[in-house]
């Protein structure tokens, strides 16, 4: 049994990423479930060409709604394939140390980027050896 809020290998769960066609429509739906006070504003993450919004669903637990802004966004093709839940986001204290540790476990990193959704903090997507996508957010 994992204790709530326990940090595992330096990774602290933050959110699950969910692709949506229209973020405003999704926000309206989630407001009915969790209330307006638990839904963030919409952020534009230019480097990823996506709009995102966070829905608080528990203690330090969020759904990240993600809408591609253009067909050039890498997640646009996932959405067209009807992929919905597609990544898990973790908070880490030292993103470079975490990347190094995960690379030693054969995780494959993509490019570091600075996220407007996290006050410009450094983030990165990595694939696990099983091709599952995770995101690290330096906290």
């Amino acid at each position, binding site marked *: 049994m994992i204790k709530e809020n326990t940090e595992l290998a330096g990774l602290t769960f933050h959110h699950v990423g969910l692709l949506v066609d229209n973020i405003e429509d999704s926000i309206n739906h989630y407001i009915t479930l969790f209330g307006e006070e638990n839904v963030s504003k919409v952020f534009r993450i230019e480097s990823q060409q996506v709009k995102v919004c966070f829905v608080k669903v528990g203690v330090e637990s969020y759904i990240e709604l993600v809408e591609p802004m253009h067909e050039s966004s890498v997640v646009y*093709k*996932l959405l067209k394939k009807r992929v919905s839940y597609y990544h898990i986001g973790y908070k880490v204290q030292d993103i470079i140390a975490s990347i190094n540790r995960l690379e030693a476990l054969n995780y494959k990193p*993509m*490019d570091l980027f600075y996220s407007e959704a996290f006050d410009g903090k450094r983030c990165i997507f990595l*694939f696990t*050896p099983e*091709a599952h996508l995770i995101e690290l957010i330096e906290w």
Partner: protein
Amino acid sequence: MERNQILQAITEIFIDVLDDNQIVLTETTTAKDIEDWDSLSHIQLVVSIEKEFKIQFTSSEIQKWKNIGEIIDSIESKSV
């Protein structure tokens, strides 16, 4: 395994991962030649190739590849 056998195996992986049975690869094929071969699918392809050939690539290796021929070179260098 011969290079043409590796090429055939890689082609099948591309068809499966990119869900496009029209894909035909040659040693000079690059990401520009395959519409859905982007930065995200590239890593998915790499992971599938690693599983198929039971090898592992480093991050620096997979960023250096310029075409399919160089992927085959890497596979050959790691295969027993």
